[in-house]
């Protein structure tokens, strides 16, 4: 469960990075992004990414750091594929990602 949470955080972070770019934001939402929102998304993404690194390395530092690199790779790959073929699909993630993050963290804490 911990690792799932780490992956989800990492994926959320990279989704944020992608959406903070005007070209990708436009492809997903069909409107321009303003700089304020972009800045906010960027900060949130960095927080998520950092949290993901901490969560994945919490128990075993060495093994966790390799896993974290893997998570980053898979997140970028999925995002690049979705963005180039079906950018609109990314819109649903706005709700799916936070929900699944909350569910996973609750499951982890119990």
């Amino acid at each position, binding site marked *: 469960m911990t*690792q799932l949470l780490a992956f989800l955080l990492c994926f959320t972070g990279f989704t944020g*990075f*992608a959406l903070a*770019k005007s070209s*990708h934001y436009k492809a997903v939402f069909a409107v321009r992004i303003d700089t304020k929102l972009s800045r906010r998304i960027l900060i949130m993404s960095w927080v998520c990414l950092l949290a993901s690194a901490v969560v994945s390395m919490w128990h*075993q530092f*060495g*093994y966790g750091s*390799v*896993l974290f*690199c*893997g*998570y*980053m*790779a*898979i997140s*970028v*790959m999925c*995002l*690049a*594929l979705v*963005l*180039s*073929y079906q950018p609109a699909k990314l819109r649903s993630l706005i709700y799916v990602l936070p929900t699944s993050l909350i569910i996973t963290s609750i499951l982890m804490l119990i």
Partner: protein
Amino acid sequence: MKDSFFRSMTWLHTWTGLLVCWLLFLIFFAGTLSFFRHEITLWSQPAIHDVAPQENRVLSQQSQITSALQHLEANAADAETWWVGLPSERTRAIEVSYQDKGKEGKRGQWHDQFMDPNTEETLNEYRDSKGGLFFYRLHFNLHYMDRTVARWLVSLASLFMLIGLISGIVIHKRIFKDMFQFRKGKGVRTWLDAHNLSSVLALPFHIMITYTGLVTLIFMLFPYPAMTQYEEGRKAFFADLNPARQHADITGNQVEMLPMKQLVDQFYTNWPNIDVKRVIVDHPSDETAQLKFYANTGTKVQDEMPVWIYNTVTGELVMTANTELSVSETLYDGMIALHTGRLALPGLRWLFFMCGIAGCVMIGSGAVMWAKRIRERMKVGKTASFGLRLVEGLNLATIMGLPVATAAFFFANRLLPDSFTGRAEAEIHLFFLGWLGVALMALYKAGTAQWRQLAQFNAVLWLLLPLCNAFTTQGNLVSYIVKQQWVLAGFDILCLITAAVFYIQSRKLANKDAANPAISRTLKGQVV
């Protein structure tokens, strides 16, 4: 000044890359497959397909080791070495091997056999095949070649790869900005995006695997610190670093060893909870004989296994090693552990595999892009230069040829009769024959038509592989899933996915041909 720096880096990136890309592709391809080395070996040994995994793996090791050693004592009393590999998370059967005594300076022949971990009886069928070990060796020893020369070549290629990575980061200033960009159907641009995407998404992996790969061969590349620090040279350094690796030469004086059961029991009284990976007896019945227990390092970032060495005559513990590593040792050994990836559980293993494929795509797309750029700039009606045709030929030969060769290797494993002499070597010859066939065709002509035909050929080959497996062994994809044999099922599914990817590729190439017959060379080479 800054401008000229970028220009020199671009130049360096292009030419170091182009010079070694085909060798690098081979190394990455074989290396990526060797992440699943034990799984490939399992597939290539149908005799152990139905060995049931154990519930209490670690608990049953004591009796397994005893049986295996007793079996060796009864059947190979005159051997140079006994070698017992215990089942682990990735291997199922007990591997029982022994090596004949060396003659006239040559190393003795190894004899391998499997033992059922549950019944502790030897299995009769052992298929003479290298399995995953072939790909593992191929990725640093190459083949048909002196080992040392091959390793220097591989090291040079890896160094160029590292240089290519560093210069690549420098020249592509916006590398992290256009991280998610993949513009499809735009010719060279698409290839550039594929190249960037595959390199940036696994950049930490690429740098790590190249650097640590060089570190695995470091004592061949840079023996000088060891030579200057130790007057007697490298050997003295190794003796100091790893005393457990040293052992005396056979003297020929026979002695009576203690019963194997007693020795094994003694180890287990002192260390009852160790997950043992391997047990080795050096020079059985010789006065220099010693018994070594190697512990599984599990998911620790450590490659050297902790070892306990016993004297087989007196039964005393001679030495333990590698249980505690110093900081420098941790750094060095950790790098090796990261490269070999032995620590990886299935999840991480698949991530490693995926990153390896990303590396193949990066190298392949870079090579293809170079050829496409040159051809785009060429004036209409001008014939291609020899260099361009050579690069195009080699691209086709490597990118499409290696999957053909790999399929040939797997088919050979299933179709060659067990009684065939020199079977393991014949499989390897077929691998290279398959590759040679494609290479000859590619060097003769490397247009879209050839790419399409080879894609179709690959699709058929990889589709037939699971079928061939179903006809020549007891199991098939359905039975694997029913019996939950996930390794074998995974192998078949991966074959089918590979076939599907090649089929899609051939369709895309056909569409492009039909849509724009003027462009005679549009290439799409995704390699799985």
